[in-house]
């Protein structure tokens, strides 16, 4: 049996099929959660980001161009929600908050954890392109279309982000040698 495409599911969901909407949700929820988690750097924030993103996306299915892929559209909404929430941190009240999102990575190797923590220290703009490129496999051109940026800007951000990560790696190695 051939699985229906995202476009078919979008069309059926928009016509009122709850089953199609549910199938579309199940197909994309985990990926969207990982994206929200890695872009925001916060596990507790990811739940709300993904819920908001799915609500917005599903409420706007009628405006979605079914000839285009669904995932990049959803992922863009997830990223926008995550960045909105991260920007709101500038106006934090109450307790002090760390300059960078806390990682709290669980169930990952020590090496991966160090790398993910380094990714979490990148600026949000650089973190987004890193996650889209290496976590979701989008090409720079696809990322450029998704974020409405010139491809050169995406390549530049990727290069700088990789430079930043290499610098973090060197710092970590120096720290390890000292201890």
């Amino acid at each position: 049996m051939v699985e229906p495409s995202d476009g078919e599911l979008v069309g059926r969901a928009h016509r009122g099929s709850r089953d199609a909407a549910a199938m579309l949700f199940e197909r994309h929820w985990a990926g969207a959660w990982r994206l929200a988690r890695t872009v925001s750097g916060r596990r507790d924030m990811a739940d709300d980001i993904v819920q908001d993103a799915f609500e917005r996306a599903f409420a706007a299915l009628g405006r979605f161009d079914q000839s285009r892929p669904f995932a990049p559209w959803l992922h863009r909404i997830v990223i926008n929600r995550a960045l909105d929430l991260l920007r709101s941190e500038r106006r934090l009240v109450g307790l002090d908050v760390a300059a960078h999102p806390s990682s709290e990575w669980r169930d990952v190797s020590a090496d991966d954890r160090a790398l993910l923590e380094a990714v979490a220290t990148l600026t949000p703009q650089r973190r987004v392109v890193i996650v889209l490129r290496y976590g979701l496999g989008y090409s720079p051109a696809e990322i450029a279309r998704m974020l409405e940026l010139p491809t050169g800007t995406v390549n530049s951000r990727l290069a700088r982000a990789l430079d930043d990560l290499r610098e973090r790696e060197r710092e970590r190695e120096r720290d390890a040698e000292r201890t």
Partner: protein
Amino acid sequence: MTFGNGNGNGSAMPSELERRLERALNDVPVEASSDAHDRARAAALTAAVAPAPGRWSQWRVVIVAAVTMVLVTTGVTLAASGERPFSDTATLTRPPQPAQLHTGLLPRAARAFSILAGGRAWVAVPHRVLLHGAPRSAIAVSPGAVYLLEAGGRRLRAVAVDTGRVVQTQRTGGPVTTAVWSPFPIRIAYLTEVGGHQQLHDEWGTLSHDYLVDRHVAAVAPSWRWDSLAVAYVRADGRVAVHSASSGRNTVIPPNCGLRHPTALAFAPTSGLLAIADRTRLRIVDTTGGAPDVCAAHSPGAPSIAWVRPRQLFVAAGTTLLRYLVLRPGLGTDTTTVPARITGLTTSPDGRRIALALTSGGSTRVVAASAPPFSEQATPLHVLQLLLPARPAAGPVTLSWQ
């Protein structure tokens, strides 16, 4: 990996780094909280099948300035026409009349909506208005809108919403001032005034097995925890306590954050987080997990609290609607200002919309609005529906949305 690193340092590191990034990012475990998937799924499916506000009634969605002008005009028109401010024609002593539609009282897609303002009650369900300005001291619609609990004098009674039949009546020790159903509609907490003091009672949803929890409490609506096993309340001395419905024990929460005489409290929808507010400050206490308290200030005024997500809540006070995001650690916030004093606040079950009672010049109106998105930018309040036109009421307004 075809993406070339642009730094030109000739190191083999980038390709190795890229491979490691691919592996690490692809192996990120999904560590969502236990209910996050189901909650998001339910919200998404609701959004998918519900018509979007923009398609449904774009003409109603206007920015607050324009709406304010309309509302003010409405109020002026009503006042000038000399319309009777209240109507008591619909009561629950006989079945409600299906033909009597007041669709303005019911927000779109709501199962029930109730307003208690100035000792008058309005209750609407789809296709029916159960109460329209009827004198009541307390009302509460049960989760699922199966029963309406209403209080008048020393009598509390439960009415079947679909038939209007009175299914149970209870005599109380004094006038009932507040009644609250638990999230699973098996218990009721209510306040009654006896000998000049407010008393808190906990009883079964059948209006039986009445238990006196505390003889001296403040006149603040209690709040049930999500599991219906505990209810938080404010004691007469201003301290907040949590009553366990299973053990019968009352646990006092030690004071913190400089709060004095809280006037509002509300449990989060799926956890033991309890928001407590007095006229200037907000405190969020983890009553079950032991996480550190979160303290914040809010705009001066009598506060109303409404949670819209497990870690997001609104606090309305004065003319300001503050939205808080509970982080670990810290608290994010944004602000929406409205041109009237907010005297009541509630949220739709999915957290996407809110209802506000807005009071100015001694009159109160109730509107439904979309919940402002959490954003750094100032977001105008999008009013979707005028639920109750201007009425002469100046005190706090109790709103409930099922």
